Structures are given as structure tokens and as C-alpha cells.
């Protein structure tokens, strides 16, 4: 018997947070609930986090995905977050953004290294499936380093 074998079905870990100035968290709370119900472990924070704090959180909690909720114009700061994650040696972490993002800015975010932008009306299944996929990518990328 091999009682110590673990099949690699450890739960996915996701950080759900908000940076910038806006505080509305109705959406991010619902997303956190979706992910939990899909078996993921969600580190959920208050809004108004500094980017440097988010990087430290992501590192300490060893998350695979960082989800930023942005309902005002705070998404404009996300490229800086992506940059700081890379600088901290955390380039394997996938960053996703959910909220009110104008279409041409979505392109800019993706170019800056954001993996996925979710708009209002995205379905629960879509969000869960994509986050799971991105988490697997992150784990593979982490093992390869």
C-alpha cells in the first residue's frame, strides 16, 4: 500500500482581490462563491489593496491565479500588477480581470500579459472552466522553472 501517494488533485488556489480606488465587491463576492463551489480555495480580500501587497499575498499563498475585479477605471493599474508579479519571480501566475472594461482596453490588457478578461454576463461555467484551465497552465509553468 502506498498511503502517501497523492494524485495531484490538490485544490486550485485563487486570489480574488481589488486594487485602485473603487470598493464595490458584489461581483467579486459572487465569483469567489462560484470558485469555492467548484472546489477551489479562494483567498478573498478587502478592496483597496496595494499592488505590492497583492504580490506578497500571491507569493505567500502560492496561488495559481490572481483575479482582479474592476468596476471603475482601476483596471488601468493591472499592467503594473503583471509587471510586479514578474519582477518577483511569479511570472507563472495567471492574471484575470473581471468587470466593466471597454473593448479596446481589453486588448491592451491582454497585450500587457493578462490572460483573460471577463465581462458582465459571463456565465458561471465559463468562468470556472477558464480559471481551472489557467490554473493548470500556471502549475505547469511553475514546475518548468
Amino acid at each position, binding site marked *: *500500500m502506498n*498511503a*502517501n*501517494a*497523492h494524485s*495531484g488533485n*490538490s*485544490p486550485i488556489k485563487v486570489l480574488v482581490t481589488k486594487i485602485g480606488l473603487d470598493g464595490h465587491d458584489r461581483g467579486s463576492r459572487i465569483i*469567489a*462563491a462560484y*470558485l*469555492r*463551489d*467548484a*472546489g*477551489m*480555495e*479562494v*483567498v*478573498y*480580500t*478587502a478592496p483597496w489593496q*496595494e499592488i*505590492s*501587497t497583492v504580490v*506578497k*499575498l500571491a*507569493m*505567500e*499563498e*502560492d496561488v495559481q491565479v490572481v483575479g482582479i475585479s474592476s468596476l471603475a477605471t482601476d483596471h488601468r493599474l493591472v499592467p503594473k500588477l503583471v509587471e510586479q508579479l514578474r519582477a*518577483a*519571480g511569479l511570472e507563472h501566475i495567471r492574471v484575470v480581470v473581471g468587470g466593466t472594461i471597454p473593448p479596446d482596453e481589453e486588448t491592451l490588457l491582454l497585450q500587457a500579459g493578462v490572460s483573460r478578461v471577463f465581462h458582465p454576463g459571463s456565465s458561471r461555467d465559463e468562468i470556472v472552466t477558464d480559471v481551472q484551465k489557467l490554473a493548470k497552465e500556471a502549475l505547469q509553468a*511553475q*514546475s*518548468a*522553472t
Partner: protein
Amino acid sequence: MNTTSQPSSLIERLLAGDSAALARAISLVENETPAAQDILKAVQSKLGRAMLVGFTGSPGVGKSSLVNAYVRELRARGKTVGVVVVDPSSPFTRGAILGDRIRITDCAADPDVFIRSLAARGNVGGLSPAAARVVDVMDAAGKDVVILETVGAGQSEVEVAEVAHVKIVVSAPGLGDGVQAIKAGILEIADILVVNKADLPDADRTQNQLRRMLKLRRSELAPVSVLPTCATTGEGISALADAVEASFKSGSGAGRTDPLLRARRVLANSAAAAAKRWVLESNDPRMTTLSEALQRGELGADEAARSLLEVIHD
């Protein structure tokens, strides 16, 4: 396997105090990967430096705010700190919202404070089975103080007691039967009782109730202090830190004077966890036979367990 996260160099960086290595090591240990065993072995000989402090108590007493204030005080005293925050998992989906660590806000950006959330992962009412191991990894990484924070739900207080040197049970006035919720058994385990939110009107009464309940303890146990705190203003925190220090030095805590006893406990818990997993998940026909015999009343539970151990041995 791979190079930089290969256990040996990871272990070197872990023992040197590198935060990224600590985070990675915790994940490997928590997820019980093959690499975990190497890490735990390497860590064993480095244990015993850190003071391990457990905080437990019902939801709503302000545990996280209290931990927050205590961490701030420790930093002011020049200590490096590791914090493990255990949150419950859904028994159905095994997912979890880990929302407590964020309340430890004051030192959120401090590189000498390392905070990690653990989901209970199906261990309903208890700690994550990995909690003790994660605490050890933080100890080996060189933290002066490692704090374990968990919701008091009966089982977890006992498990905290096996891990922590100093056990703090937190309550607060005005929670209805808040004091009753501190079951008599917990009082046997606690080293310090804290009444948080001491600015509330009932605080004095709560403290007195606790002192009366303490008189029911066995007299040979070390005395327990009852301390009022107000986590949001910082009142009583310095006194708490002093009391924790004093309790630690007087050495009544878990396995402090006997690392071997601690190791035996770790062995017992690991064995129990492993056996439990195997019994519940295995498809081995001998399992079925034993279970059926137990169900029919042909074997008693103890007998069945002994037979099981023989089966596992093969």
C-alpha cells in the same frame, strides 16, 4: 523532477529563510506530494527554535483582529513572525473561502511577517491535517514566533494543544452563551484566556465568569491568566505578549521539554490519517470482508481495527 524547485535546493533556500521557498515548501507539504517527505525530514532537526502560539475561539470574538494586534506587538519587539490561519472547507465541494488572513492588516506589507491560509480540507470541525506540518516548516525557516489561528470547534482546540507551546482561547462579552461555549475541557488545555472587546459593558462580568470556571480545573495544572484586551485600540496587547512569553518560558507547553514525545504524536496522527484514508478510499476486497463482518456483528470494532493493521502491514 526539476531544478530550482527540486527539494534539495528548495530546502536550502527554505532553511536560509527565503519567503518564496517557504511558500513553495508549504504547498508541497500541504498537498502531501512525494517531495513533502524530503522536506519534512530535512526540517525535523531544525525544529524547536520558534515559540509556537495557538489562538482559538468562536467566530465573532475578534480573533483575527487580536492576532493582528499581537503580530504588530511582536514586530515592535523585533521578532520575525509566521502565521497560519485555518479556515473551514466545504465538506461537499472541498472548496473554501480563505478570508481571515486579510484581517491581519497592519503588517500586510512587512517582509518579516509571513502569513499563510490553510483550508481544513474535509477535516470537519478540526484542523487541516497539514497544519502541524506547516507550523514545523515555518519553525525551520527561522521564524521567531509561529502563530496558529483557528476557529474553535471542539476538535481543533485539542489539535492546537498538541502543536502549540502556548494556547490562547479567546472569548468576547455579549455573545449570548459565549462563555458557555468555552467547554470545560478547553479550560484544561488553555494557558491564557483572553476576553477581547474589553471596551464592551459586559467585559468585567465575562472575566469573572471565566475565573470562576477556572477554579474547576485540576489544581496541579499551572495557573491560567484571564486577560482583557481591546484589539482595535491595542489595549492589553502588551500585557498579553508578556504573558505569552512568560508561559513559554515556564515550559509547560506541548513537547517543549520532550521532542521525542512530540515526534511520537506526529507519528500517531500521521498513521491515523493514513489508515483512515486507506480504509475509506480503498477497493481492496479484504476491506469489504472486514466491513461486512463488522456490520454483521461478527467482529467488534477493536478486533476489526487490529485485523486491519495486519492487512495494511502487507
